[in-house]
């Protein structure tokens, strides 16, 4: 791992990743062992590895799998669900499953067809659905914090995109912990400083069975393009991704950006689902499913 000037054998690497994760959980005050934790799991290497790490560190954490109904001839959703269920069963972990089609009447691709958001690709609709359901389940079942498996590469790519577009509101919000506010559960990303390459190595060396195929709609996506660009930079300048992201967090903490409140939209509860929204009337999710 050139970015850390560190080389580890298998045994010590599999100790190092959880140790680093625990260090970041404490450093960024993400959550404690007494809190009820929900982990959003997709069947991918990061979320399953996160659950494995959190479990091994002794935190009590249940999983949430959202079946998005993405098939595209590959059975993507059904295979990712199968792997997630197998992972949970092998470890005796509790897994909540929300099937979007059963619960809301259509799959994510079908919602995308009907809405303005996803005429070409359903990615925007997918994000909207996942955020809504993750928040709803976290709140309704009394979990105190929701964890996601976002790694450093994910965060750096999002930061890169937000910086290219100078989307101030997103730049102010992006970080390893989103504090809970009325209507929104606290969210944390314990793997946010771990490189995606390190997470892949962790999954492979731990023998975690995850869905190898990426989402069929992810091909050609902007986020993957940004990740590839950042990898080229990292290849020439080991540590660049980490430095980019951590320097951003430091700069924001030091007051580089404008006051958060001046950019934040006013929120009120959606009259249908009760989740906070800046839209007048129904929130985006409820508007979409009502069409």
């Amino acid at each position, binding site marked *: 791992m050139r970015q850390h000037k560190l080389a580890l054998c298998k045994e010590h690497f599999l100790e190092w990743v959880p140790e680093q994760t625990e260090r970041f959980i404490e450093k960024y005050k993400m959550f404690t062992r007494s809190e009820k934790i929900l982990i959003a799991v997709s069947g991918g290497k990061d979320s399953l590895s996160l659950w494995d790490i959190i479990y091994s560190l002794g935190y009590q954490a249940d999983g949430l799998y959202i079946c998005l109904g993405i098939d595209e001839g590959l059975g993507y959703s059904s295979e990712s669900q199968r792997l997630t269920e197998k992972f949970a069963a092998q470890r005796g972990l509790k897994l909540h499953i929300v099937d979007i089609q059963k619960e809301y009447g259509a799959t994510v691709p079908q919602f995308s067809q009907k809405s303005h958001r996803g005429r070409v690709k359903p990615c925007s609709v997918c994000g909207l659905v996942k955020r809504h359901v993750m928040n709803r389940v976290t709140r309704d079942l009394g979990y105190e914090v929701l964890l996601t498996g976002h790694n450093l*590469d994910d965060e750096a790519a999002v930061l890169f995109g937000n910086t290219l577009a100078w989307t101030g509101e997103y730049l102010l919000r992006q970080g390893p912990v989103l504090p809970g506010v009325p209507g929104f559960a606290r969210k944390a990303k314990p793997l946010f400083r771990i490189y995606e390459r390190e997470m892949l190595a962790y999954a492979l060396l731990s023998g975690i069975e995850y869905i190898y195929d990426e989402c069929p709609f992810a091909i050609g996506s902007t986020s993957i393009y940004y*990740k590839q660009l950042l990898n080229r930079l990292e290849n020439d300048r080991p540590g660049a991704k980490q430095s980019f992201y951590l320097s951003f967090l430091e700069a924001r903490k030091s007051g580089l950006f404008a006051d958060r409140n001046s950019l934040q939209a006013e929120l009120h509860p959606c009259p249908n689902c009760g989740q906070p929204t800046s839209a007048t009337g129904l929130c985006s999710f409820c508007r979409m499913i009502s069409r």
Partner: protein
Amino acid sequence: MVKLILRDQEYDVRPGMTLLDALKKNNILPEGVLCTRNGELITEDEVVKEGDVIKLIAVISGG
């Protein structure tokens, strides 16, 4: 020869070079893959031997 396999692409390289050099020769970014041989993870300083079949696993995932 040594075979590198990344998804459905195959690349042939001569034995005796490091995996790092083999990747660079084929314009594969080392940062973007992990390498396995016979199911075991190997590092880029490994010297590839005649008959090796190296499976490359793409790091970047989407979804």
